[in-house]
């Protein structure tokens, strides 16, 4: 029941989606909309699992007084405050949760990403070495493209924007196309294996 039925469900869901792609009838579009609704509902509940796991982990850290347990309290307060203001006042424009998003979550999220700018420069200095011909080629490509992408590059060598564009249009395009075709073949075969029940690792467990 817990291994066979999921395989049948995966098969039916996959096959109907493939067939649906080729049927232009209104019924087919309505069917797609229904499948989408079901997937969104399941996804919504899956998010709840993630949240509950996060609460469990932080709660146990607080109970056991593990390292940084004081900050786990911050996380728990943040979770419950966000849920409270979200469920009570909704998520429309001007609501408290929108304020929280605009002035707490978004600035911190963007700043986390922006730290990468510093680390990418630091990593370039400390690890980017032309040890092999391949690494040298990578380095050369990166330097030419970085020069070519900024206005100042043209003042250093007039042809560099054209050369950088050639690297992007020809070798970069060819390599990305090769990767794309390989990934497409891989994802198609993996999807088929899942639908046909050959690939069963997603079931997990032994029973």
């Amino acid at each position, binding site marked *: 029941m817990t291994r066979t039925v999921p395989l049948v469900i995966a098969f039916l869901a996959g096959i109907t989606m493939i067939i649906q792609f080729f049927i232009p009838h209104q019924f087919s*579009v309505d069917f797609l909309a229904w499948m989408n609704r079901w997937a969104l509902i399941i996804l919504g509940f899956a998010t709840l699992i993630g949240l509950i796991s996060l609460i469990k982990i932080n709660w146990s850290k607080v109970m056991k007084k593990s390292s940084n347990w004081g900050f786990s309290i911050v996380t728990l307060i943040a979770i419950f405050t966000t849920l409270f203001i979200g469920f009570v006042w909704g998520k429309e424009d001007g609501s408290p949760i929108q304020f929280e998003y605009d002035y707490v979550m978004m600035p911190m999220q963007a700043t986390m990403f922006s730290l990468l700018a510093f680390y990418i*420069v630091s990593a370039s200095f*400390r690890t*980017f070495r032309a040890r092999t011909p391949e690494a040298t080629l990578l380095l050369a490509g990166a330097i030419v493209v970085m020069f070519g*992408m900024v*206005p100042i590059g043209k003042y250093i060598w007039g042809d560099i*924007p054209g050369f950088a564009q050639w690297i992007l249009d020809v070798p970069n395009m060819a390599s990305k196309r090769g990767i794309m075709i390989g990934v497409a073949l891989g994802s198609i075969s993996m999807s088929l294996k899942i639908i046909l029940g050959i690939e069963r690792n997603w079931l997990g467990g032994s029973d």
Partner: protein
Amino acid sequence: MNFWDKLTKIDRRYIFIVVAIGVLMPYLFPMNLPVDITRKVAAIYDYVEALPEHAKPVLVSLDFDPSTAPELAPMTTAFVQHCFRRNIPVVAMTLHPQGPGLAQGIMARVAADMGKVYGEDWVFLGFKAGGSIVIRTIGEDIRQAFPQDYYNNPLDSNTLMMSVTNYKDFSLVISFSGSQIPMSWIAFAHEQYGANVATGLTAVMAADFYPYLQTGQLVGLIAGLKGAAEYESLVDTRLGHSAEVQKLALEGDKTAQKEAQLLLSTRSTSATRGMDAQSIIHMIVIFFIIVANISYFFSLRAQKQEGRK
């Protein structure tokens, strides 16, 4: 440890300070370097320019959140300004759950600046969950995906939407995104329904989309802050205006001085301004890479010489 070894083991906080100075310097000493226009950006600009005035609307999908807005908001603004300048209506939407507020803000601001009327010149449909499934649903009937607009008005209450059913009623579909969603636009809107698709992407994603450009699956591609700066200079939104105001401000005109200050602050969000800092940082990265490799080769040589001794 010789000098070159010490150099490669320098505390990274010194590198961070150099980066910080490099980022802040253009705000103190603007360089205003002109931006080269590339074919992939010009292709989108030329496409819109070639559309007749009052052509079929353009579908603009703002599939990004505020964390990628520094790159994508300027290009979106410039593109929508271009459409409005040519009197081409815009239907906006978003497939990103954190996108509606940002998308509505951009559209409302640009429309107000250019005197465009909601419902006639532009409509904002809001957010719909489902990604690729929404893209496919629009191909059949946009009303199934969006029965109402963002402000909960029935779609047909907007004059603009009365003549729009699916992709056949759009001149162009453009997705501004920091994720893989443009691939779904290409796979479904273009391949299945024959829509002309263009995209604006963050620089991280841009290199991966060149194959779509070469096959013609994409009309054009605006990549990162550089692409946004290119489109801005094509649309010529800021440069001419600010030069004129700054001249008056230098002559002592108080009103012009205040407007110059505003333009300076609003121009701060333009991509063109950001390219000055990009130039400096790129030069810093290249300099560090070259210095690091020089020190690497000197270290290697020193090790070989010690080995021989």
